[in-house]
């Protein structure tokens, strides 16, 4: 059996950043396994710009952002295998992978970074009634067909869901010659960035209908029409509000889910809220030596944060492989959320293992205006940050510093709350 100290599952933005940071932490026995034909993951099909403002202080397209990390990987001569699908990982960290070139291989790792990314929710998971014709695509599938393969998935398009991929695809389809009729969003707010609403919908006169959903899909072979209706406060369609659109395509941008088949298979504990692994301050899962970062951990809004998070995971994986990060946990203090945040990543922390600072990321469950994000250590407010507006579509973060922790040597509880005032 082959052995590597750190095996990284996935060569997208998270996997690349984790590999580079593990290397820079001194670990040189690293293997990245990527199922696709190239490194870079989903960024390869995200050809629009707007990536990297935090990391590089410039606006890059997805492929450009990916290439910067690919270059770093190649400079460091980090090993990677393409077209290689991981079939299974055991608790003992034996990775079984499969490819045309190598067949089925087994690799023993000392530490593993899970970086498989996420997938789109499908029509099926929404229980949208109607026929099941051709012409219903998830936005990402359409994005791949248009951007990577040069095909047009449809000419008259209705979009359900105003997440960023849906908005971006409204513009892409329009610029490729399709007519986008409407973008319906079941929530009373859009999950997408304001910039995308303006530049992808408003620029082309595409109406955004909030609190609307698709109630029927027509067409036995190919989509011939879609009916949308307004929904009430329980998200149930209101009879009499139906509007019919003649169209040949329905694009769905209705949410992303961490892709945790492998994690689940190996017994990693998953969060019922963010659907990714439950991790501690080192981004380590309940299985010692198994770390997670990026969209497989929780769905991010900006790739910059994916890279940042994955750098931490890579560094910690290297430390674990080197024996400087042990599994013997001193303490696992859960981070309480008190309503505002739906979840936090990490979920728990051990103050002894935190260096200068710890970034805690979270999302809120509804749009909130004029609030403060307050952090309490044993009931003492150690941080209070005003926020003009918070939305479920945007990730929030707070920085816990060494200094704050040092003020509470016998720390028993941590709470992050979103409060008025």
């Amino acid at each position, binding site marked *: 059996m082959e052995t590597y100290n750190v095996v990284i599952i996935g060569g997208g933005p998270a996997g690349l950043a984790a590999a580079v940071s593990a290397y820079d932490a001194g670990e040189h026995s690293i293997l990245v396994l990527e199922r696709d034909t190239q490194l870079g993951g989903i960024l390869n099909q995200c050809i629009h710009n707007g990536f990297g403002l935090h990391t590089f202080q410039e606006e890059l397209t997805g492929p450009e952002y990916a290439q910067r990390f690919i270059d770093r990987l190649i400079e460091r001569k980090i090993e990677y295998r393409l077209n290689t*699908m991981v079939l299974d990982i055991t608790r003992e960290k034996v990775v079984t992978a499969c490819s045309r070139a190598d067949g089925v291989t087994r690799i023993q790792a000392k530490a593993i970074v899970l970086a498989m990314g996420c*997938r789109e929710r*499908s029509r099926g998971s929404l229980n949208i*009634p109607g026929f099941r014709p051709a012409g219903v695509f998830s936005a990402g599938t359409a994005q791949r067909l248009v951007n990577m*393969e040069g095909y047009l998935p449809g000419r008259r398009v209705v979009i359900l869901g105003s997440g960023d991929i849906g908005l971006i695809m409204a513009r892409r389809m329009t610029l490729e*010659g399709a007519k986008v009729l409407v973008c319906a969003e079941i929530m009373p707010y859009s999950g997408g960035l304001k910039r995308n609403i303006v530049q992808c919908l408003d620029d082309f006169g595409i109406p955004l209908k909030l609190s609307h959903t698709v109630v029927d899909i027509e067409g036995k072979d190919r989509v011939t029409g879609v009916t949308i209706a307004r929904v009430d406060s329980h998200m149930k369609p209101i009879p009499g509000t139906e509007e019919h659109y003649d169209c040949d395509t329905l694009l769905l941008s209705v949410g992303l889910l961490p892709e945790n088949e492998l994690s689940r298979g190996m017994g990693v504990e998953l969060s019922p809220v963010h659907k990714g692994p439950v991790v501690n301050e080192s981004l380590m899962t309940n299985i010692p030596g198994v770390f997670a970062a990026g969209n497989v951990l929780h769905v991010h809004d900006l790739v910059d944060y994916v890279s940042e998070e994955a750098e931490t995971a890579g560094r910690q994986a290297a430390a674990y492989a080197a024996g400087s990060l042990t599994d013997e946990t001193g303490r696992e203090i859960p981070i309480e959320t008190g309503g505002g945040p739906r979840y936090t990543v990490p979920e728990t922390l051990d103050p002894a293992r935190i260096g200068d600072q710890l970034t805690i990321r979270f999302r809120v469950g509804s749009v909130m205006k004029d609030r403060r994000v307050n952090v309490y250590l044993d009931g003492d407010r150690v941080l209070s940050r005003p926020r003009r507006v918070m939305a479920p579509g945007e990730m929030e973060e707070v920085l816990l510093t060494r200094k704050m922790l040092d003020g509470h040597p016998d720390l028993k509880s941590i709470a992050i709350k979103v409060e008025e005032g």
Partner: protein
Amino acid sequence: MRIYDAVIIGAGITGCAVARYLSRYQGNFLVLEREEDVCCGTSKANSAIIHAGHDAKHGSLMAKYNVEGSEMYPDLAEELDFPFRQNGSLVLAFSKEDLPRLKALYENGVKNGVKGLEIIDAKRTRELELNASDQAVCALYAPTGGIVCPFEATIALAENACANGVEFRFNTEVTGFRKLEAGWEVLTAAGKAIETKAVVNAAGVYADIFHNLVSEKKIHITPRRGDYCLLDKTTGDFVSHTIFQLPGKEGKGVLVTPTVHGNTLVGPTAIDIEDKEGTNTTAAGLDQLLQKAGAAVKNIPIREVITSFAGLRAHEDGHEFIIGEPDDAPRFFDCAGIESPGLTSAPAIGLDVADRIARTLDLPEDPSFVGKRKGFLNPNKLSIKERNDLIKKEPSYGLVICRCETITEGQIIDAIRRPIGAKSLDGVKRRVRAGMGRCQGGFCSPKVMEILSRELGVPMEEITKSGGKSQVIVGRAKDRI
């Protein structure tokens, strides 16, 4: 012009079963199918279960074929290499008042010849099924109840029929018949009439139309829609038996069952409609379904639904199978009104109808008939060594295309290249499950389309989801800018 011994209308499970058993005889046999593939109607959207046989009224054809069919499945599944498992079934009773009906069901089953039936108490019910409703006071346990992959069962029958010389013609719609002295002329939308000594009417929800064209003894089939929800494989152990509620007048009600592939299936509703093509789910239907399923099984993980679909049962007014020649239409063999337990009964009906045709036409047995068929190779079931040998020989078995179900390029190529091969995304999906998983083809469909395009030698723009006008892409980017 070739004169056929038998023309079978419809390549669903019944038509394919008749074809397979006919192929044991010498003769020219032809299957005509309106769609682009086998298994495109009722056979593709049903509960995928093999009924033990306690429901159908004793003395009915339904009862006879059900029990016979149910007994044929274990051997047939082995011979034709398709997924089947006897997981056992439970019919739950929720109150003391239900007891007489449950007993009656038991007695009916015993009379039908169902083996191993037992009425079990609440405690035993819960031992067998942790998630059975707390309201269940007792249950009828049928250990011979089973689950099957209806796609592969149909495909297996068709492939085996084909291997034994039966011809299949797809995209061919039958429009009428002309009676001949000893047989029929079958008219098709394509134009050319086909001469045959016998016709088999296995046209599902359309069987009444064909029957009524040749017989004065009219029948009437109502498409009875059943909505279903399929749950993610993460729910695979949610139930282990097929769980029914006591049957009512609209059929056997909503069931919750594991599938042979490890999903959980919930359904069906029973909604009578007019449109023989009305396979659209409705919000009301899906709501009703989930509400009813909740009565039998608690805590259904409904958030794990990966797809919902609807199928049509061919419900004849008399609620009975119509098998064989009408008095006024000799050599026109009906297989009509094939609703539940149709999937279970199909092999028995196929065997019986084939034998009847052979007797009528005096067909000799075919000594070269080979009853065995090799199923689709699934690398996931091989040892690592076997798998590596396979990949060395055929590297395409090393490239995973469908992530959710771990389906390799080799399997997809196999599905396409077989004699009755896949020609569309759904055709591939039904054969080897690429696109059947939780992402529902989101990741793999562009790749499967490329493989189809390459293997079939047709441009990407012509690749369809399910034949006809179901093209997936409509053109090239910027082609009309």
